[in-house]
Protein backbone atom coordinates (compact mmCIF):
# COMPACT_ATOMS: atom_id res chain seq x y z
CA UNK A 1 0.00 0.00 0.00
CA UNK A 2 2.84 2.38 0.81
CA UNK A 3 4.16 1.80 -2.68
CA UNK A 4 0.89 2.93 -4.17
CA UNK A 5 0.70 5.96 -1.92
CA UNK A 6 4.23 6.92 -2.82
CA UNK A 7 3.50 6.65 -6.52
CA UNK A 8 0.43 8.82 -6.05
CA UNK A 9 2.44 11.41 -4.12
CA UNK A 10 5.22 11.45 -6.67
CA UNK A 11 2.75 11.80 -9.50
CA UNK A 12 1.32 14.85 -7.73
CA UNK A 13 4.70 16.50 -7.23
CA UNK A 14 5.63 16.06 -10.88
CA UNK A 15 6.76 19.16 -12.72
CA UNK A 16 4.15 20.57 -15.02
CA UNK A 17 4.86 19.79 -18.63
CA UNK A 18 7.46 17.10 -17.94
CA UNK A 19 5.45 14.55 -19.87
CA UNK A 20 5.35 16.77 -22.95
CA UNK A 21 9.15 16.72 -22.96
CA UNK A 22 9.34 12.96 -23.04
CA UNK A 23 6.25 12.21 -25.11
CA UNK A 24 7.99 12.39 -28.53
CA UNK A 25 10.63 9.95 -27.37
CA UNK A 26 8.09 7.57 -25.87
CA UNK A 27 6.24 7.48 -29.21
CA UNK A 28 9.54 7.01 -31.06
CA UNK A 29 10.59 4.26 -28.64
CA UNK A 30 7.35 2.33 -29.08
CA UNK A 31 7.46 2.56 -32.89
CA UNK A 32 11.13 2.08 -33.69
CA UNK A 33 12.57 0.18 -30.73
CA UNK A 34 9.88 -1.75 -28.83
CA UNK A 35 7.79 -2.81 -31.82
CA UNK A 36 10.76 -4.07 -33.88
CA UNK A 37 12.09 -5.92 -30.83
CA UNK A 38 8.79 -7.71 -30.28
CA UNK A 39 8.33 -8.30 -34.00
CA UNK A 40 11.81 -9.82 -34.22
CA UNK A 41 10.64 -12.50 -31.78
CA UNK A 42 7.56 -13.16 -33.95
CA UNK A 43 9.73 -13.45 -37.06
CA UNK A 44 11.91 -16.11 -35.43
CA UNK A 45 9.08 -18.63 -35.80
CA UNK A 46 7.88 -17.73 -39.28
CA UNK A 47 8.76 -18.15 -42.90
CA UNK A 48 8.00 -14.95 -44.77
CA UNK A 49 8.95 -13.13 -47.96
CA UNK A 50 6.82 -10.02 -47.11
CA UNK A 51 4.64 -10.54 -50.21
CA UNK A 52 2.74 -13.73 -49.35
CA UNK A 53 1.17 -14.31 -45.89
CA UNK A 54 3.40 -15.34 -42.98
CA UNK A 55 3.74 -19.03 -42.39
CA UNK A 56 4.30 -20.47 -38.89
CA UNK A 57 7.16 -22.94 -38.95
CA UNK A 58 7.94 -23.37 -35.24
CA UNK A 59 11.64 -23.87 -34.52
CA UNK A 60 12.60 -24.58 -38.13
CA UNK A 61 14.56 -21.32 -38.51
CA UNK A 62 16.78 -22.36 -35.60
CA UNK A 63 17.10 -25.88 -36.93
CA UNK A 64 18.20 -24.49 -40.24
CA UNK A 65 20.69 -22.13 -38.59
CA UNK A 66 22.29 -24.96 -36.64
CA UNK A 67 22.94 -26.85 -39.86
CA UNK A 68 23.89 -23.82 -41.94
CA UNK A 69 27.53 -24.00 -43.05
CA UNK A 70 27.45 -20.40 -44.28
CA UNK A 71 26.43 -19.17 -40.82
CA UNK A 72 29.48 -20.83 -39.28
CA UNK A 73 31.59 -19.58 -42.14
CA UNK A 74 30.49 -15.99 -41.46
CA UNK A 75 31.25 -16.41 -37.74
CA UNK A 76 34.69 -17.78 -38.57
CA UNK A 77 35.31 -14.90 -41.01
CA UNK A 78 34.37 -12.37 -38.32
CA UNK A 79 36.72 -14.11 -35.89
CA UNK A 80 39.55 -14.00 -38.45
CA UNK A 81 38.90 -10.30 -38.90
CA UNK A 82 38.92 -9.58 -35.15
CA UNK A 83 42.01 -11.65 -34.38
CA UNK A 84 44.00 -9.51 -36.83
CA UNK A 85 42.21 -6.19 -36.49
CA UNK A 86 42.19 -5.74 -32.70
CA UNK A 87 45.86 -6.44 -31.88
CA UNK A 88 47.08 -4.61 -35.00
CA UNK A 89 44.96 -1.57 -34.24
CA UNK A 90 45.95 -1.50 -30.57
CA UNK A 91 49.66 -1.84 -31.41
CA UNK A 92 49.68 0.84 -34.11
CA UNK A 93 47.59 3.25 -32.03
CA UNK A 94 49.75 2.77 -28.94
CA UNK A 95 53.01 3.21 -30.88
CA UNK A 96 51.85 6.41 -32.57
CA UNK A 97 50.37 7.78 -29.32
CA UNK A 98 53.56 7.06 -27.34
CA UNK A 99 55.65 8.83 -29.98
CA UNK A 100 53.24 11.77 -30.22
CA UNK A 101 53.23 12.10 -26.44
CA UNK A 102 56.98 12.78 -26.37
CA UNK A 103 57.15 15.34 -29.15
CA UNK A 104 55.88 18.89 -28.97
CA UNK A 105 56.27 20.37 -32.43
CA UNK A 106 53.74 19.31 -35.03
CA UNK A 107 51.71 17.15 -32.66
CA UNK A 108 48.43 18.71 -33.76
CA UNK A 109 49.23 18.24 -37.44
CA UNK A 110 50.21 14.59 -37.04
CA UNK A 111 47.12 13.89 -34.97
CA UNK A 112 44.91 15.55 -37.61
CA UNK A 113 46.45 13.45 -40.41
CA UNK A 114 46.09 10.17 -38.53
CA UNK A 115 42.46 11.03 -37.86
CA UNK A 116 41.62 11.93 -41.46
CA UNK A 117 40.41 8.47 -42.63
CA UNK A 118 38.06 8.28 -39.63
CA UNK A 119 35.83 11.07 -40.94
CA UNK A 120 35.78 9.97 -44.58
CA UNK A 121 32.91 7.78 -45.79
CA UNK A 122 33.58 4.05 -45.64
CA UNK A 123 32.39 3.74 -49.23
CA UNK A 124 35.04 6.18 -50.48
CA UNK A 125 37.74 4.46 -48.43
CA UNK A 126 36.68 1.06 -49.78
CA UNK A 127 36.71 2.22 -53.41
CA UNK A 128 40.15 3.70 -52.84
CA UNK A 129 41.54 0.51 -51.26
CA UNK A 130 40.04 -1.61 -54.01
CA UNK A 131 42.49 0.15 -56.31
CA UNK A 132 45.39 -0.06 -53.84
CA UNK A 133 44.80 -3.80 -53.46
CA UNK A 134 44.35 -4.56 -57.16
CA UNK A 135 46.49 -7.57 -58.11
CA UNK A 136 47.75 -6.49 -61.53
CA UNK A 137 48.03 -2.72 -61.30
CA UNK A 138 47.42 -1.82 -57.63
CA UNK A 139 49.62 0.67 -55.82
CA UNK A 140 50.64 -1.80 -53.12
CA UNK A 141 51.83 -4.46 -55.55
CA UNK A 142 53.57 -1.79 -57.62
CA UNK A 143 55.45 -0.76 -54.49
CA UNK A 144 56.37 -4.37 -53.74
CA UNK A 145 57.70 -4.74 -57.31
CA UNK A 146 59.75 -1.59 -56.93
CA UNK A 147 61.72 -3.19 -54.09
CA UNK A 148 61.92 -6.55 -55.84
CA UNK A 149 59.20 -8.43 -53.94
CA UNK A 150 56.49 -10.60 -55.54
CA UNK A 151 52.83 -9.53 -55.79
CA UNK A 152 50.45 -10.32 -52.94
CA UNK A 153 47.01 -11.68 -53.96
CA UNK A 154 45.32 -9.19 -51.59
CA UNK A 155 41.70 -9.79 -52.51
CA UNK A 156 41.84 -12.86 -54.75
CA UNK A 157 43.25 -15.47 -52.36
CA UNK A 158 40.68 -16.82 -49.85
CA UNK A 159 43.33 -16.91 -47.11
CA UNK A 160 44.45 -13.32 -47.67
CA UNK A 161 41.21 -11.48 -48.45
CA UNK A 162 39.85 -11.17 -44.89
CA UNK A 163 43.23 -10.11 -43.44
CA UNK A 164 43.39 -7.48 -46.21
CA UNK A 165 40.01 -6.12 -45.11
CA UNK A 166 41.23 -6.12 -41.50
CA UNK A 167 44.26 -4.04 -42.50
CA UNK A 168 42.05 -1.59 -44.39
CA UNK A 169 39.69 -1.26 -41.40
CA UNK A 170 42.67 -0.62 -39.15
CA UNK A 171 43.90 2.13 -41.47
CA UNK A 172 40.45 3.70 -41.41
CA UNK A 173 39.80 3.59 -37.65
CA UNK A 174 43.14 3.73 -35.88
CA UNK A 175 43.06 7.55 -35.61
CA UNK A 176 40.30 7.43 -32.98
CA UNK A 177 42.41 5.20 -30.79
CA UNK A 178 45.56 7.27 -31.24
CA UNK A 179 43.58 10.18 -29.79
CA UNK A 180 42.12 8.04 -26.99
CA UNK A 181 45.53 6.66 -26.01
CA UNK A 182 47.02 10.15 -26.16
CA UNK A 183 44.36 11.45 -23.75
CA UNK A 184 45.02 8.44 -21.51
CA UNK A 185 48.78 9.01 -21.54
CA UNK A 186 48.39 12.67 -20.64
CA UNK A 187 46.20 11.75 -17.68
CA UNK A 188 48.87 9.56 -16.05
CA UNK A 189 50.31 11.49 -13.07
CA UNK A 190 54.02 12.23 -13.43
CA UNK A 191 54.60 11.19 -9.79
CA UNK A 192 53.93 7.56 -10.69
CA UNK A 193 56.91 7.55 -13.06
CA UNK A 194 59.08 9.40 -10.56
CA UNK A 195 58.27 6.90 -7.84
CA UNK A 196 58.95 4.00 -10.19
CA UNK A 197 62.33 5.33 -11.30
CA UNK A 198 63.30 5.99 -7.67
CA UNK A 199 62.60 2.31 -7.07
CA UNK A 200 65.00 1.57 -9.91
CA UNK A 201 62.47 0.48 -12.53
CA UNK A 202 63.81 0.50 -16.10
CA UNK A 203 61.86 2.47 -18.75
CA UNK A 204 60.52 -0.84 -20.06
CA UNK A 205 59.33 -1.89 -16.59
CA UNK A 206 57.77 1.53 -16.11
CA UNK A 207 55.88 1.04 -19.36
CA UNK A 208 54.72 -2.42 -18.25
CA UNK A 209 53.71 -1.55 -14.69
CA UNK A 210 52.67 2.10 -14.91
CA UNK A 211 51.68 3.01 -18.47
CA UNK A 212 49.80 -0.09 -19.55
CA UNK A 213 47.60 -0.45 -16.42
CA UNK A 214 46.75 3.25 -16.55
CA UNK A 215 45.66 2.88 -20.18
CA UNK A 216 43.30 0.07 -19.33
CA UNK A 217 40.06 2.05 -19.89
CA UNK A 218 41.22 3.00 -23.40
CA UNK A 219 42.12 -0.64 -24.08
CA UNK A 220 38.64 -1.77 -23.04
CA UNK A 221 37.14 0.79 -25.44
CA UNK A 222 39.38 -0.29 -28.32
CA UNK A 223 38.53 -3.98 -27.84
CA UNK A 224 34.78 -3.53 -27.39
CA UNK A 225 34.25 -0.99 -30.17
CA UNK A 226 36.42 -2.94 -32.63
CA UNK A 227 34.46 -6.10 -31.84
CA UNK A 228 31.12 -4.40 -32.45
CA UNK A 229 32.59 -2.91 -35.63
CA UNK A 230 33.80 -6.32 -36.78
CA UNK A 231 30.36 -7.82 -36.39
CA UNK A 232 28.84 -4.88 -38.31
CA UNK A 233 31.21 -5.22 -41.28
CA UNK A 234 29.09 -4.78 -44.40
CA UNK A 235 30.00 -2.23 -47.02
CA UNK A 236 33.68 -3.25 -47.14
CA UNK A 237 33.10 -6.84 -48.32
CA UNK A 238 30.02 -5.77 -50.28
CA UNK A 239 32.07 -3.43 -52.47
CA UNK A 240 35.47 -5.16 -52.42
CA UNK A 241 34.69 -8.83 -52.84
CA UNK A 242 30.94 -9.42 -52.64
CA UNK A 243 31.77 -11.89 -49.85
CA UNK A 244 34.20 -13.94 -51.92
CA UNK A 245 36.55 -15.47 -52.86
CA UNK A 246 34.98 -18.75 -51.76
CA UNK A 247 32.85 -16.98 -49.09
CA UNK A 248 36.04 -16.04 -47.23
CA UNK A 249 34.88 -12.46 -46.63
CA UNK A 250 31.18 -13.18 -46.09
CA UNK A 251 30.53 -11.15 -42.92
CA UNK A 252 27.57 -11.69 -40.63
CA UNK A 253 25.87 -8.48 -41.71
CA UNK A 254 26.41 -9.27 -45.40
CA UNK A 255 24.93 -12.71 -44.90
CA UNK A 256 21.84 -11.26 -43.19
CA UNK A 257 21.50 -8.75 -46.02
CA UNK A 258 21.77 -11.45 -48.68
CA UNK A 259 19.23 -13.71 -46.96
CA UNK A 260 16.76 -10.84 -46.68
CA UNK A 261 17.23 -9.05 -49.99
CA UNK A 262 18.62 -11.62 -52.43
CA UNK A 263 16.43 -14.52 -51.29
CA UNK A 264 13.54 -12.78 -49.48
CA UNK A 265 13.97 -14.98 -46.39
CA UNK A 266 12.82 -12.40 -43.83
CA UNK A 267 12.19 -14.88 -41.02
CA UNK A 268 15.56 -16.55 -41.42
CA UNK A 269 17.37 -13.20 -41.78
CA UNK A 270 15.73 -12.02 -38.54
CA UNK A 271 16.79 -15.26 -36.85
CA UNK A 272 20.38 -14.69 -37.99
CA UNK A 273 20.23 -11.13 -36.68
CA UNK A 274 18.88 -12.35 -33.35
CA UNK A 275 21.55 -14.99 -32.91
CA UNK A 276 24.28 -12.59 -34.01
CA UNK A 277 23.09 -10.06 -31.44
CA UNK A 278 23.34 -12.71 -28.71
CA UNK A 279 26.85 -13.64 -29.89
CA UNK A 280 27.91 -9.97 -29.83
CA UNK A 281 26.55 -9.42 -26.31
CA UNK A 282 28.23 -12.62 -25.12
CA UNK A 283 31.59 -11.78 -26.64
CA UNK A 284 31.58 -8.21 -25.33
CA UNK A 285 30.64 -9.28 -21.79
CA UNK A 286 33.36 -11.95 -21.87
CA UNK A 287 35.96 -9.45 -23.09
CA UNK A 288 35.08 -6.98 -20.34
CA UNK A 289 35.34 -9.65 -17.70
CA UNK A 290 38.69 -10.91 -18.97
CA UNK A 291 40.26 -7.46 -19.28
CA UNK A 292 39.00 -6.35 -15.88
CA UNK A 293 40.24 -9.50 -14.13
CA UNK A 294 43.62 -9.16 -15.88
CA UNK A 295 44.20 -5.75 -14.31
CA UNK A 296 42.91 -6.52 -10.85
CA UNK A 297 45.31 -9.45 -10.51
Amino acid at each position, binding site marked *: MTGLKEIFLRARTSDRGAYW*FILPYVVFFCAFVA*YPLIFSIVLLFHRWNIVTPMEWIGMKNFGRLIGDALFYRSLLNTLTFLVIHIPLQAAVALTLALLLNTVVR*GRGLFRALYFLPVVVSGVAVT*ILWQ*QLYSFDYGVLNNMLHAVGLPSVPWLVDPHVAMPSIAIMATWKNVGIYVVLFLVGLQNIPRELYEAASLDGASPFKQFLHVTLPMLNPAIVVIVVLSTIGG*FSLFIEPY*VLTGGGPMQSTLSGMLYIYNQAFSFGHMGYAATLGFVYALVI*LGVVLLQRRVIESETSS
Partner: protein
Amino acid sequence: MKRMLKYAILTAGAAVFAYPFLWMLAGSLKPEMEITSLNLLSGNFSLQSYAQVLLKIPIGRAFLNSVIVSATNTASVVLFGSMVGYALAKLRFLGNKTLYMLILFTMTIPFQIVLIPQYILMVKLGWTDTYLALVAPTMMSAFSIILFRQFFMAIPQALVDAARIDGCTEVMILFRIIWPLSRPVIITVALLTFMSNWNEVLWPMMVVREQTLMTMPQLITIFTTGGQAETQLGYLLAAATLLSLPVIIAYTFFQRYFIESMASSGLKG
Protein backbone atom coordinates in the same frame (compact mmCIF):
# COMPACT_ATOMS: atom_id res chain seq x y z
CA MET B 1 69.38 11.78 -33.01
CA LYS B 2 66.63 10.04 -31.09
CA ARG B 3 64.32 12.92 -31.80
CA MET B 4 65.09 12.70 -35.51
CA LEU B 5 64.12 9.04 -35.46
CA LYS B 6 60.84 9.81 -33.71
CA TYR B 7 59.92 12.43 -36.27
CA ALA B 8 60.93 10.08 -39.08
CA ILE B 9 58.50 7.42 -37.82
CA LEU B 10 55.72 9.95 -37.22
CA THR B 11 56.17 11.38 -40.72
CA ALA B 12 56.19 7.93 -42.28
CA GLY B 13 52.93 7.27 -40.42
CA ALA B 14 51.42 10.51 -41.70
CA ALA B 15 52.42 9.54 -45.26
CA VAL B 16 50.65 6.19 -44.88
CA PHE B 17 47.42 8.01 -44.04
CA ALA B 18 47.72 10.94 -46.43
CA TYR B 19 49.29 9.42 -49.56
CA PRO B 20 46.32 7.21 -50.54
CA PHE B 21 44.01 10.26 -50.48
CA LEU B 22 46.44 12.27 -52.61
CA TRP B 23 46.74 9.31 -54.98
CA MET B 24 42.95 9.15 -55.20
CA LEU B 25 42.72 12.87 -56.01
CA ALA B 26 45.54 12.65 -58.56
CA GLY B 27 44.06 9.53 -60.13
CA SER B 28 40.68 11.19 -60.54
CA LEU B 29 42.37 13.94 -62.58
CA LYS B 30 44.71 11.78 -64.66
CA PRO B 31 43.98 10.03 -67.95
CA GLU B 32 43.21 6.32 -67.53
CA MET B 33 46.64 5.17 -68.74
CA GLU B 34 48.58 7.05 -66.05
CA ILE B 35 46.46 6.27 -62.97
CA THR B 36 48.26 3.16 -61.81
CA SER B 37 51.58 5.02 -61.58
CA LEU B 38 52.83 5.83 -58.08
CA ASN B 39 53.69 9.32 -59.22
CA LEU B 40 51.18 11.90 -58.02
CA LEU B 41 51.86 14.43 -60.74
CA SER B 42 51.06 14.37 -64.40
CA GLY B 43 51.16 16.84 -67.27
CA ASN B 44 47.73 15.69 -68.41
CA PHE B 45 45.41 16.61 -65.54
CA SER B 46 41.81 17.12 -66.64
CA LEU B 47 38.27 17.00 -65.26
CA GLN B 48 37.24 14.40 -67.85
CA SER B 49 36.41 11.67 -65.28
CA TYR B 50 34.29 14.06 -63.21
CA ALA B 51 32.36 15.11 -66.30
CA GLN B 52 31.64 11.46 -67.08
CA VAL B 53 30.49 10.68 -63.52
CA LEU B 54 28.17 13.70 -63.50
CA LEU B 55 26.79 12.54 -66.84
CA LYS B 56 26.17 8.94 -65.78
CA ILE B 57 24.62 9.35 -62.32
CA PRO B 58 22.52 12.11 -60.70
CA ILE B 59 25.18 12.93 -58.15
CA GLY B 60 23.98 16.50 -57.60
CA ARG B 61 20.59 15.15 -56.59
CA ALA B 62 22.26 12.56 -54.34
CA PHE B 63 24.29 15.29 -52.67
CA LEU B 64 21.08 17.21 -52.03
CA ASN B 65 19.40 14.07 -50.64
CA SER B 66 22.32 13.49 -48.30
CA VAL B 67 22.15 17.08 -47.08
CA ILE B 68 18.38 16.91 -46.54
CA VAL B 69 18.51 13.61 -44.65
CA SER B 70 21.55 14.48 -42.53
CA ALA B 71 20.35 17.99 -41.68
CA THR B 72 16.82 16.87 -40.75
CA ASN B 73 18.12 14.10 -38.52
CA THR B 74 20.67 16.37 -36.89
CA ALA B 75 18.09 19.04 -36.06
CA SER B 76 15.70 16.42 -34.75
CA VAL B 77 18.25 14.55 -32.65
CA VAL B 78 19.47 17.80 -31.04
CA LEU B 79 15.95 19.12 -30.40
CA PHE B 80 14.35 15.97 -29.01
CA GLY B 81 17.56 14.72 -27.40
CA SER B 82 17.93 17.91 -25.39
CA MET B 83 14.24 17.86 -24.42
CA VAL B 84 14.39 14.34 -23.02
CA GLY B 85 17.84 14.98 -21.54
CA TYR B 86 16.46 18.04 -19.77
CA ALA B 87 13.44 16.15 -18.43
CA LEU B 88 15.70 13.38 -17.11
CA ALA B 89 18.19 15.78 -15.53
CA LYS B 90 16.04 18.57 -14.15
CA LEU B 91 12.36 17.59 -14.01
CA ARG B 92 10.57 15.44 -11.46
CA PHE B 93 8.02 13.08 -12.90
CA LEU B 94 6.76 9.60 -12.33
CA GLY B 95 8.90 7.12 -14.25
CA ASN B 96 12.00 9.30 -14.51
CA LYS B 97 14.32 6.52 -13.29
CA THR B 98 12.53 3.89 -15.36
CA LEU B 99 12.84 5.94 -18.52
CA TYR B 100 16.55 6.50 -17.86
CA MET B 101 17.16 2.78 -17.38
CA LEU B 102 15.14 2.04 -20.51
CA ILE B 103 17.28 4.41 -22.58
CA LEU B 104 20.48 2.89 -21.20
CA PHE B 105 19.09 -0.54 -22.08
CA THR B 106 18.30 0.65 -25.62
CA MET B 107 21.96 1.52 -26.09
CA THR B 108 23.06 -2.04 -25.39
CA ILE B 109 20.87 -3.64 -28.06
CA PRO B 110 22.96 -4.67 -31.08
CA PHE B 111 21.33 -3.15 -34.17
CA GLN B 112 21.40 -6.50 -35.99
CA ILE B 113 18.37 -7.61 -33.99
CA VAL B 114 16.02 -4.76 -35.01
CA LEU B 115 17.27 -4.20 -38.56
CA ILE B 116 14.97 -6.61 -40.41
CA PRO B 117 11.86 -5.79 -38.30
CA GLN B 118 12.51 -2.07 -38.85
CA TYR B 119 12.71 -2.67 -42.58
CA ILE B 120 9.44 -4.60 -42.49
CA LEU B 121 7.85 -1.74 -40.55
CA MET B 122 8.89 0.65 -43.34
CA VAL B 123 7.31 -1.67 -45.92
CA LYS B 124 4.08 -1.93 -43.90
CA LEU B 125 3.85 1.84 -43.49
CA GLY B 126 4.51 2.26 -47.20
CA TRP B 127 7.53 4.42 -46.46
CA THR B 128 10.09 2.63 -48.60
CA ASP B 129 11.38 4.87 -51.40
CA THR B 130 10.46 8.01 -49.44
CA TYR B 131 12.47 10.41 -47.31
CA LEU B 132 10.47 9.22 -44.30
CA ALA B 133 12.20 5.84 -44.32
CA LEU B 134 15.61 7.54 -44.37
CA VAL B 135 14.75 9.92 -41.55
CA ALA B 136 12.17 8.45 -39.16
CA PRO B 137 14.08 5.55 -37.54
CA THR B 138 17.07 7.78 -36.69
CA MET B 139 15.18 10.89 -35.61
CA MET B 140 16.12 10.32 -31.98
CA SER B 141 19.05 8.59 -30.42
CA ALA B 142 19.48 7.09 -26.99
CA PHE B 143 23.16 7.94 -26.97
CA SER B 144 22.59 11.67 -27.49
CA ILE B 145 19.88 11.74 -24.82
CA ILE B 146 22.44 10.33 -22.39
CA LEU B 147 25.06 12.87 -23.50
CA PHE B 148 22.60 15.72 -22.95
CA ARG B 149 21.49 14.36 -19.58
CA GLN B 150 25.09 14.06 -18.32
CA PHE B 151 25.84 17.63 -19.39
CA PHE B 152 22.63 19.08 -17.92
CA MET B 153 23.20 17.30 -14.59
CA ALA B 154 26.27 19.50 -14.09
CA ILE B 155 24.25 22.72 -14.53
CA PRO B 156 23.26 24.01 -11.05
CA GLN B 157 19.64 23.33 -10.07
CA ALA B 158 19.58 26.82 -8.48
CA LEU B 159 19.71 28.34 -11.94
CA VAL B 160 16.61 26.41 -13.02
CA ASP B 161 14.79 27.21 -9.77
CA ALA B 162 15.57 30.93 -10.05
CA ALA B 163 14.21 31.00 -13.59
CA ARG B 164 11.03 29.27 -12.43
CA ILE B 165 10.52 31.87 -9.72
CA ASP B 166 10.90 34.55 -12.39
CA GLY B 167 7.99 32.92 -14.16
CA CYS B 168 9.82 31.08 -16.94
CA THR B 169 8.10 28.04 -18.38
CA GLU B 170 10.15 24.85 -18.73
CA VAL B 171 10.31 25.35 -22.50
CA MET B 172 11.78 28.84 -22.02
CA ILE B 173 14.26 27.52 -19.45
CA LEU B 174 15.49 24.83 -21.83
CA PHE B 175 15.90 27.02 -24.90
CA ARG B 176 16.79 30.40 -23.35
CA ILE B 177 18.89 29.36 -20.37
CA ILE B 178 20.12 25.79 -20.76
CA TRP B 179 20.85 25.79 -24.51
CA PRO B 180 23.17 28.82 -24.49
CA LEU B 181 25.16 27.15 -21.70
CA SER B 182 25.37 23.87 -23.60
CA ARG B 183 27.25 24.72 -26.76
CA PRO B 184 29.92 22.01 -26.34
CA VAL B 185 27.41 19.16 -26.02
CA ILE B 186 25.20 20.54 -28.79
CA ILE B 187 28.18 20.72 -31.15
CA THR B 188 29.26 17.20 -30.21
CA VAL B 189 25.82 15.68 -30.73
CA ALA B 190 25.20 17.63 -33.95
CA LEU B 191 28.54 16.68 -35.46
CA LEU B 192 28.30 13.00 -34.54
CA THR B 193 24.75 12.77 -35.86
CA PHE B 194 25.50 14.58 -39.09
CA MET B 195 28.58 12.46 -39.76
CA SER B 196 26.94 9.14 -39.03
CA ASN B 197 23.98 10.05 -41.27
CA TRP B 198 26.21 11.36 -44.03
CA ASN B 199 28.26 8.15 -44.09
CA GLU B 200 25.42 5.68 -43.48
CA VAL B 201 24.94 3.25 -46.35
CA LEU B 202 23.44 -0.03 -45.09
CA TRP B 203 20.02 1.41 -44.19
CA PRO B 204 19.56 3.36 -47.45
CA MET B 205 20.55 0.20 -49.35
CA MET B 206 17.64 -1.54 -47.64
CA VAL B 207 14.84 0.99 -47.97
CA VAL B 208 15.60 2.92 -51.17
CA ARG B 209 15.58 1.50 -54.70
CA GLU B 210 14.71 4.64 -56.62
CA GLN B 211 17.76 6.42 -57.96
CA THR B 212 16.44 9.94 -57.40
CA LEU B 213 16.09 9.27 -53.65
CA MET B 214 19.51 7.74 -53.08
CA THR B 215 21.99 9.41 -50.77
CA MET B 216 25.53 9.93 -51.99
CA PRO B 217 27.22 6.86 -50.45
CA GLN B 218 24.45 4.60 -51.72
CA LEU B 219 24.45 6.01 -55.25
CA ILE B 220 28.21 5.66 -55.48
CA THR B 221 28.13 2.13 -54.06
CA ILE B 222 25.62 1.12 -56.74
CA PHE B 223 27.66 2.95 -59.38
CA THR B 224 30.74 0.99 -58.31
CA THR B 225 29.25 -2.47 -57.95
CA GLY B 226 26.56 -2.22 -60.64
CA GLY B 227 28.86 -2.00 -63.66
CA GLN B 228 28.00 1.59 -64.59
CA ALA B 229 31.58 2.63 -63.96
CA GLU B 230 32.63 0.30 -66.82
CA THR B 231 35.74 -0.60 -64.80
CA GLN B 232 37.16 2.83 -65.59
CA LEU B 233 39.42 3.60 -62.64
CA GLY B 234 39.17 7.32 -63.25
CA TYR B 235 35.37 7.27 -62.88
CA LEU B 236 35.59 5.29 -59.63
CA LEU B 237 38.21 7.57 -58.15
CA ALA B 238 36.32 10.69 -59.23
CA ALA B 239 33.15 9.36 -57.57
CA ALA B 240 35.07 8.50 -54.37
CA THR B 241 36.65 11.96 -54.37
CA LEU B 242 33.28 13.66 -54.78
CA LEU B 243 31.99 11.63 -51.85
CA SER B 244 34.87 12.43 -49.50
CA LEU B 245 35.61 16.01 -50.50
CA PRO B 246 32.77 17.77 -48.60
CA VAL B 247 33.76 16.00 -45.40
CA ILE B 248 37.48 16.64 -45.88
CA ILE B 249 36.82 20.34 -46.49
CA ALA B 250 34.66 20.59 -43.35
CA TYR B 251 37.33 18.64 -41.45
CA THR B 252 40.17 20.99 -42.38
CA PHE B 253 38.23 23.92 -40.93
CA PHE B 254 36.69 22.30 -37.85
CA GLN B 255 39.29 19.62 -37.23
CA ARG B 256 39.41 20.16 -33.47
CA TYR B 257 35.63 19.71 -33.08
CA PHE B 258 35.68 16.54 -35.17
CA ILE B 259 38.48 14.95 -33.16
CA GLU B 260 37.12 15.97 -29.76
CA SER B 261 33.55 14.86 -30.55
CA MET B 262 34.44 11.52 -32.03
CA ALA B 263 37.05 10.70 -29.42
CA SER B 264 34.73 11.64 -26.56
CA SER B 265 31.99 9.46 -28.01
CA GLY B 266 34.48 6.60 -27.95
CA LEU B 267 35.30 7.24 -24.31
CA LYS B 268 31.72 7.35 -23.17
CA GLY B 269 30.34 4.71 -25.51
